[in-house]
């Protein structure tokens, strides 16, 4: 177990003790609902300024990005997949989320600006765990969003077609 897993485990165990359930055992397992719930909360912040104003269109782009994340994750090493599952599961759990965000409110209850501040706090955290969470999520989510040709309008970029 490396330092990152150790800290994650500590947060999970603390939450488990409070809840009296074995959160730690379950936290490494994939949970699609938790992942979707967390991404639905973080994507509007990360993509603030690029998502369309129209809520329906924005929702379509978020859904497409969530799907791209789901499609991509199985290609990662199992070790990294487990870390991501754990991060999503912990963020979706109110008590463990408190340990990661310092917020007692659920992520979706925060304003977009508060979610942006949260990302900034992770980025600047003295805990390398939170810095890694920031960079890991950032790269995963931006990769998923900008990998979709439907999202290239703002870049004035089109891939060549000659076949």
């Amino acid at each position: 177990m490396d330092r990152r897993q150790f800290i994650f485990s500590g947060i999970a165990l603390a939450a488990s003790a409070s809840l009296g359930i074995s959160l730690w055992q379950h936290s490494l397992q994939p949970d699609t609902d938790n992942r979707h719930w967390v991404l639905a909360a973080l994507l509007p912040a990360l993509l603030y300024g690029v998502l369309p104003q129209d809520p329906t269109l924005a929702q379509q782009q978020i859904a497409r990005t969530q799907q791209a994340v789901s499609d991509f994750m199985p290609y990662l090493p199992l070790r990294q997949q487990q870390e991501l599952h754990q991060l999503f599961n912990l963020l979706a759990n109110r008590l463990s989320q408190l340990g990661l965000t310092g917020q007692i409110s659920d992520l979706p209850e925060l304003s977009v600006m508060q979610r942006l501040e949260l990302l900034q706090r992770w980025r600047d955290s003295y805990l390398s765990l939170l810095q890694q969470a920031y960079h890991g999520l950032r790269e995963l989510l931006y990769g998923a969003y900008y990998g979709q040709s439907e999202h290239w309008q703002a870049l004035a970029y089109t891939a060549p077609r000659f076949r």
Partner: protein
Amino acid sequence: MTTNHLDASQFTQHQQFDTDIVIIGSGAGGGIAAEQLAQAGVKVLLLEEGAYYSRDDFVMQERWAYPNLYQEGAARKTRDQAIGILQGRTVGGSTTVNWTTSIRTPQPTLNYWHSEFGLNFTGDNDLTPYFAKAEQRLNIHPWPIPPNANNAKLQQGCEQLGWQYSVINRNVNGCANLGYCGMGCPINAKQSMLVSTIPAALALGATLISRISVRQLHWQGNSITSLTAVPVDQYFQPRTDIKISIRAKHYIVAAGAIGSPALLLRSNLPDPSGRLGKHTYLHPTVISGAVFDEAINGHSGAPQSIYSDQFVWPDNSEQAGFKLEVPPLHPVLMATKLIGHGEAHAALMQQFNHLQVTIALLRDGFHPQSQGGTVQLDDAQQPVLDYPISDYLWQGMRQALLAMAELQFAAGAKQVLPIHHDAKLYRSWAEAKTAIQSLPMQKLKQTVVSAHVMGGCNMSADPAKGVVDQNGRHHQLQNLSVFDGSILPTSLGANPQLTIYALVWRNCQQLISML
């Protein structure tokens, strides 16, 4: 696809193969070896963990290319997540996805290997004829077309400042100047192993097995006796339901500088020098973006056509040298590397077509404070590279950020953005210089990437200082060779493919003469 190709993921029961030579990995090392040995008339079995794609599969989209053609979906990271590593995992290895830059091993690097590792590449061992053979085989020539704007800015900056620069030699034939080399060449112009040596080896009777992961070499005394492999699933994860056993007279490991040491470590091979999996080098690379008034369109045109060696071999040996190049600019590559989030990131992405990007590749492995990284195995027995960044390297990176900003302003940049998470767009060289001098050089704050993995099974004349000898033969096991970038005892100070081609070509001639 040829009938000499087997897709291991289609196997429905355990398999056993016998051959003269088995080659594990089909990149720059394995690809050259397959053709050389097939030409010598020996029975060759070539194994590749990735899939066997052809030009029709290469759709020029990152969302397909990264998961299907790269190790760990192009999201490979060092243990502490501080360095991102681009490395191929497909038939042809990194040669299928590299940016075609072909540079001979710099003489000072060979000199260093001679003095530190007793490796003598002069006289009968001169690599020059092998560089020439590889250049002829893979159509390596100076790029005759004017550079795209991204490369032209590197050239113009050098001209303004009086810095050295060179036109890059590329391994292409009939290149249409598209700019999508990193996603697999859609017109077979790039002379990767996928379209050159591997089809030639198959035509000579070699067999290729794709989607196979070699888990262990079995050994007794001073010989490898067999190997065990498994198929990979649709996500390239090793499966456990089917076992493949292969027996050969000679075993060539060419799984890349992370994969090869990992296989030897999994197999508990003798390691009396203590250097197996150690001293892995990366050419740690830092990035500088620049906004220009005119369109740059860095996605279009040969990705690399100009480099500068102004700073590779500094007079002061306490300074880390670095090579200046540019990368191709595509949406995912840009979005994941540009700094910030929310509106700030969106605003940078909107300048996509006006961004010029320069990279500086540090020459690691030539200083006591630059001893590289260590390949380790995780719980699933998969490799993970631990690469601590020393103060010597951080200071080299700061010098590199300074040089790139100076160059970009000299080339006419309106604003320069060092890719560091505490940096911002600077409007003048003076402003950038002051800011860069005070940026905290710390992991995760300073973005570091690598596209060149080297070392981990280093060659040396003395068995006490390396894993293999000068011919790539394992010092302890008589029927084992390592033929890939993992045998390099330091980084190169140049893009590695041509060095690997020449070394392996030469090593194959040695091996054939002894079979």
